[in-house]
């Protein structure tokens, strides 16, 4: 498990959060291109060669027909044909080389951007952002992909344009009228494309969003399936989906019409252009200005140019999409207080570093000793009003808050998101120190989040390395489950500890999820553990079991535990109960004593 890779520096980076948000943010496209400029330096010329050869093939064939077949020279015919084949081979080799190089670069960039954004979002030192997870996901996947496409696009668009220009020049040199016809064709094509493409892409976007809407409705209904079935409104959900699906269909049909018209129009322009070139070139040949071979070559070149133009016609839209995506990537990173070329976010660092919780990289080698308990020295953050609280090693203290805002403020303070005057031993809990403190302090978030993994892996999330994660000795896991009143899970789950728990625990009930999270925090065995309402999703009977087992598991001489709760069972088993109202401590003692207070009794027995 241990590796010599550099640890995640726990000291804050030169405070990215304070970076001026209005400061110019480095461009993502530029960063991508700069990272691969050496590749582009040899790929672009090579690509130009391969595109140029594509244009030379019809010319070559024309020459072979002229000097071989028309002249009746079999040797020239065969040698000429072989030369054309060889030329194409060179073109193919160039194409494959450029294709593979640009694809590699493109995929590397996609990967790099994606991982950098993931690392930046999850890094506790990044500035917090308030964006829906779905949006971050789509930026880190589809926008990262699209922005990186610039490496796919450049090696193709730039040479194609050059070759099209070159072909036009050649035709003009042959005959002014031919060149003019070609130019006219290009202009008409561009106009047609410029007129159609915007309408078309609007239609397309519209259809895509309607289709996405229908697909999202489908997913949404399936996710809410239990709720729908509970209500017995399947038929209404069905009708709702059918409506969305029909709206999407209507949009798709309109789009189909426009796509059809667009493909028809480009075909028409190609046809007209071809006719013009054929007529002009044939007339010139009849007049003796051109040879038959050149006539054939001209027709072939015209066709190829029109083909390339059709491909190039998509480029402006592609480019627009690309720069939008690049901007989105840049803005997300900017909001996080990071930049695309952040040294902390290089692939190498992000893919080799191990987590450091303040106890050194690679996990917690062995059981941590006492940390000196948890202390609050006249804390006045949020709604709290000079709260003094001490949780010594060896004790389990419960805090009952009449107002939930007091509970939130308390947990906020000990988790170190604000500097509120809380300490672990002598070490203050501050935003700067919170990373180093993680080896000794665990504040279990109240909202349960489980990640894909077996039950054993869930429990081992932060367990010391002494806990066997290979299944050879599950005593530690048994103990954690027992402390969380979750022993019954082993009977229920089909494969016991090896049962796969899906993301967010979606194959478990709310109560099961909450107990697994609780067991996970017990298995982590932190010197100081803070829990907030750990039993809200379980029934009264199970709550009793948990209260007894949890307190027993945590009441060790070198462990301190703070439970913020109003559950009578937990309060009764705690060594001491602190009663908070209106931000102040109004009473302290054991549960039985406090039950004499009328408002306390009412609060816990609701």
């Amino acid at each position, binding site marked *: 498990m241990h590796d010599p890779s550099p640890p995640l520096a726990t000291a804050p980076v030169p405070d990215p959060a304070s970076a001026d948000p209005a400061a110019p943010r480095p461009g993502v496209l530029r960063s991508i291109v700069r990272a691969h400029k050496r590749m582009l330096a040899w790929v672009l010329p090579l690509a130009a060669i391969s595109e140029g050869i594509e244009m030379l093939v019809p010319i070559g064939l024309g020459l072979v027909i002229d000097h071989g077949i028309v002249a009746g020279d079999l040797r020239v015919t065969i040698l000429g044909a072989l030369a054309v084949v060889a030329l194409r081979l060179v073109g193919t080799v160039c194409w494959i080389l450029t294709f593979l190089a640009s694809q590699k670069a493109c995929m590397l960039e996609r990967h790099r951007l994606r991982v950098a954004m*993931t690392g930046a979002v999850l890094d506790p030192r990044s500035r917090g952002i308030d964006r829906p997870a779905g949006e971050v996901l789509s930026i880190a996947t589809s926008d990262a992909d699209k922005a990186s496409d610039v490496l796919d696009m450049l090696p193709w668009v730039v040479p194609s344009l050059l070759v099209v220009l070159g072909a036009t020049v050649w035709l003009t040199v042959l005959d002014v009228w031919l060149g003019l016809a070609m130019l006219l064709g290009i202009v008409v094509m561009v106009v047609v494309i410029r007129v159609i493409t915007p309408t078309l892409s609007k239609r397309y976007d519209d259809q895509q969003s309607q289709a996405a809407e229908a697909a999202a409705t*489908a997913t949404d209904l399936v996710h809410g399936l*239990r709720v729908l079935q509970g209500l017995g409104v399947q038929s209404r959900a069905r009708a709702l989906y059918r409506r969305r699906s029909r709206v999407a269909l209507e949009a798709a049909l309109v789009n189909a019409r426009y*796509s059809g018209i667009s493909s028809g129009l480009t075909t028409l322009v190609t046809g007209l252009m071809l*006719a013009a070139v054929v007529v002009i070139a044939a007339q010139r040949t009849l007049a003796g200005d051109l040879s038959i071979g050149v006539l054939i070559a001209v027709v072939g070149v015209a066709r190829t140019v029109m083909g390339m133009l059709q491909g190039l016609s998509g480029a402006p839209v592609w480019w627009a999409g690309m720069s939008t995506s690049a901007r989105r990537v840049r803005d997300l990173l900017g909001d996080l207080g990071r930049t695309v070329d952040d040294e902390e976010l290089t692939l190498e660092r992000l893919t080799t570093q191990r*987590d450091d919780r303040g106890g050194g990289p690679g996990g917690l080698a062995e059981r941590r000793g006492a940390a000196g308990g948890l202390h609050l020295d006249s804390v006045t953050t949020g709604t709290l009003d000079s709260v003094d609280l001490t949780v010594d090693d060896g004790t389990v203290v419960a805090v009952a808050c009449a107002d939930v805002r007091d509970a939130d403020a308390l947990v906020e303070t000990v988790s170190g998101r604000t500097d509120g005057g809380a300490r672990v031993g002598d070490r203050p809990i501050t935003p700067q120190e919170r990373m180093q403190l993680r080896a000794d302090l665990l504040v279990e978030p109240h909202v349960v989040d489980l990640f894909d993994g077996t039950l054993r892996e869930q429990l081992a999330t932060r367990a010391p390395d002494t806990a066997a994660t290979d299944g050879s000795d599950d005593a530690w896991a048994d103990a954690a489950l027992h402390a969380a009143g979750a022993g019954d899970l082993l009977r229920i789950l089909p494969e016991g500890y090896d049962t796969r728990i899906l993301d967010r625990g979606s194959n478990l009930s709310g109560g099961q999820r909450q107990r697994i999270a609780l067991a996970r925090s017990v298995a982590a065995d932190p010197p100081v553990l803070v829990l907030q309402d750990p039993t809200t999703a379980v029934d009264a009977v199970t709550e009793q079991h948990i209260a007894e087992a949890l307190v027993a598991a945590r009441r060790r001489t070198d462990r301190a535990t703070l439970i913020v709760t109003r559950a009578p069972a937990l309060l009764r088993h705690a060594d001491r109960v602190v009663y908070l109202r209106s931000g102040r401590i109004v009473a302290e003692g054991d549960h039985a004593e406090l039950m004499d207070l009328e408002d306390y009794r009412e609060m816990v027995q609701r």
Partner: protein
Amino acid sequence: MSMIDWNRSVEEVLGDDTTAQRQLDEHAQLLPIASGGQAARFMLARLSEHRWFTAVTLLITIGSAVAAAILPRLIGAAVGVVDSEGTSRAVWALGGQIVAVGAVQAVLMAVGWTMISSLGQRILAGMREDVIDRALDLPAQSMEQTGIGDALSRVADDVDVAARAVNNLVPNLIQLGFLVVVTLAGMATLSPYLLLMVVVIVPLYVLAARWYLRRTAPLYRKERVAMGARAQGLLSAIHGIPTVNAYGIERRETRHVAVLSETAAVLNMRVMSLVGKMVALINIPESIALLSVMVIGFAMVHQAGAPLGLVTAAAIYLVSLFWPMLAFIFNLDDVQSAGASLSRMVGVITSIDPAASPGPQVPQDSSIRLEQVSHSYTTDEDGQERVVLHPIDLDIAAGETVALVGASGAGKSTLASIITGTLTPRHGRVLHGGADLARADIEAVRSHASIVSQDVHVFRGTLAEDLKLARPLATEEELWAALRTVEADAWAERLPKGLETEVGEKGERLSAEQSQQLALARIALQDPAVLVLDEATADEGSSGARVLERAALAVAAGRTTVIVAHRLSQAKEADRILVMAEGRVVEQGPHEHLVALDGVYARLWEAWSS
């Protein structure tokens, strides 16, 4: 500077990330997949529903391909005119013909494209509606089958994949296919030697295409799984940022995403290098064709005395085919993956029967009766049922409130689901108002009994749309009345656009309590005679908890109610309490009675209240 080692195997890339390994190889298929034959038959059946449209589409597509294939011949004819020192008039005439044929081709192409795409979209719309139709009736209530929910959401993705394909790919591919066939046929009619050449190179193309597709299909499949897992990993890490930071596992989660991202990249690169090899391979038949056209052309002109225009036409035919052929093969890739999506959809549609009413019985009142009901979700190795609910008889009078008390796993939720009819028990009968659920009208029972479960879900769309799921024709006044009943009117009014505010995953995010209130408001609108409350309790001490409690009481008023009690304070108010342990009812009666009994419940109460 490359930082991805493209030559590493997937296993090497995955390394010690066991979760990623599992995500990539397990990939449990919970849903039926149709075989290729089944899927083809299904599609033919759907196509035959649009028989005439299909036939016309086919004709038009062939027409446009024929027009396209005539063009090279006209060009060849123009060369022929020049070669034979023809007149300028003749050239103009051919130019006119090219314009005419080009115009016909353009029109047919536009119409054909539109028709193919429309046909595909119509069939697809029907299919996706059928898929969701079936999905909505799958039993989702039981824990063992929750995986199905995830599997079904994958079907929603499949619909998306198929839709994209139908948009562009299918019309393009069908037109390309016809173009290739008609052009080859056109070439073969020029000279029997050219026919011979076609016969030689076509198999080479087919071989190359098969070689390519066989290798890419599994790569694409695996890449798609990796991309799915990548998205899932990223999403769950973002959702769980507080946990990630509290446990200090940000590097682990980042690496997990990175490993999957790199896997997808490596797999994709393998496809790309196959593309490169494929292009190189295709060069062989292309070169053979080029060489032979020149040599055959020489022979045609000098031995058979054929006009030069013919040779030109052949050369143009050939060169104009290179690109469509390659495009055709590459497009087949996407067709393959769209086909995989399609067979999953067909699998769902054909193997799951649409829900039907088992009988005509209709509940007469809101009483409930259970006769010898027992249940097990699974059987063990010996085929013995793993009983979670032992046989139980139960009568609940109309309007009675019953509370279920017991530890986790005692069978409370199972019993609650059976009572509402969302779970069919293995044994015994469930009667609602005299109607046996096994013989009852399905819609009547569905609107008769509702359950509010622990899963809260806010549906996409506006707040009004969410509520209207329960009563589609509700007036605005009725919606507000329902919100008032659950005391949600205050915050609903404060929403930026009131009832028209977008909620759900894309819109305004509602708190857990608000979502729960919404669930109760839906019940108020749905107005069922029987209500089962199996909700998670709100966070203790939150101001919302009391509101929710009041809301639940208000909504339950006047209904036969079964409450899965999480707090004894809830149980205390019930007319009757059932204490459950290990799938059995061990005590039952009103609160005072049970306290006096001095049994399990009495001990619980003692611990709770002192």
